[in-house]
């Protein structure tokens, strides 16, 4: 088997780079109209690097909300990465801690999804960094482009491209779902719980994703273990 390296990672990260392109351009554009300078907009994309919270911060800035509140809100919205990082720890090969620390800086919903759904038992850090860099470069580069050009893509393309990241999530999920009922149940139950939170307004998006994913992962695991025990028990009684 060939070893997965940095360039394989860049290639695997291309769907994310495409998906970030319209989102980052729009962010650059909105940042400009909110009054952020090119450097402030880029600093946000380079140092914060978390789409949803960056968008929310623009809305809050324009409403004159206290920066402290914006920071706290960012924490809440991005805390879901804690769960992803813990899960990714089971997927990434052991490496020096400081390198993992740098790698972790660039973990997003999308890079996590690409890495965590790989078939390999453990992934080399170089591959993970390739995926991360492809996504990151697209994000800050097109933030700058959006701010500089100050115009968006043609409307039809802009709407069409807004499907990109969801199409990618589906493209990652479907091959794993094939012939694996547990994965189908995991995805479906988390989707249902998340819809419930959204439509009832019980939890904000950040928490809703954490709670629905955790609940689904826990409940499905408990049920499967019960089921396995029963099956084993039945086999024993037969023999």
């Amino acid at each position, binding site marked *: 088997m060939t070893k997965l390296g940095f360039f394989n990672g860049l290639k695997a990260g291309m769907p994310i780079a495409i998906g970030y392109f319209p989102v980052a351009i729009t962010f650059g554009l909105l940042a400009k109209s909110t009054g952020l300078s090119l450097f402030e907009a880029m600093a946000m994309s380079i140092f914060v690097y978390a789409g949803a919270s960056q968008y929310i911060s623009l809305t809050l800035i324009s409403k004159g909300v206290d920066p402290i509140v914006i920071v706290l809100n960012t924490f809440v919205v991005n805390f879901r990465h804690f769960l992803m*990082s813990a899960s990714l720890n089971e997927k990434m090969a052991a490496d020096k801690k400081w390198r993992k620390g740098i790698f972790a800086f660039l973990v997003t919903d999308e890079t996590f999804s690409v890495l965590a759904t790989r078939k390999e038992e453990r992934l080399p850090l170089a591959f993970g960094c390739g995926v991360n860099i492809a996504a990151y470069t697209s994000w800050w580069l097109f933030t700058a482009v959006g701010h500089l050009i100050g115009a968006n893509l043609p409307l039809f393309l802009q709407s069409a491209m807004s499907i990109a990241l969801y199409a990618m999530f589906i493209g990652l999920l479907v091959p794993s779902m094939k012939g694996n009922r547990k994965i189908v149940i995991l*995805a479906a139950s988390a989707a249902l719980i998340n819809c419930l939170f959204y439509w009832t307004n019980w939890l904000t998006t950040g928490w809703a994703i954490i709670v629905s994913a955790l609940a689904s992962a826990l409940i499905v695991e408990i049920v499967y273990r019960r089921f396995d025990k029963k099956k084993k028990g039945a086999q024993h009684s037969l023999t």
Partner: protein
Amino acid sequence: MGISYWWMILGMALVTYLPRAVPLTFLQGIELPPFLTSVLRNIPFAILGALIFPAIFYVKQGDYFFGILGAVVAFGIAYSGVNVIFVVLGAIGVLAIYSLMFYV
């Protein structure tokens, strides 16, 4: 934008980085109980479900069908087993035609 916005960006960066970094650096090398490991291995598929739904219905404001069409196309292409990049490009392509027909 005054100096306080730089402090705000720094604060945002810090509170975003910590949850990303703490598990990956501190959990490495620690043997977790098998049950917890299994739960963590379930997480990606659960998160994908939660990332897709219900957001897919709201991809285009006021047009639920837009996201549903994109999802169906993506599902179909993904089911055929091709690389994810074609799933993404295919969904964009179909929705570009749809947008040209109904929104331009």
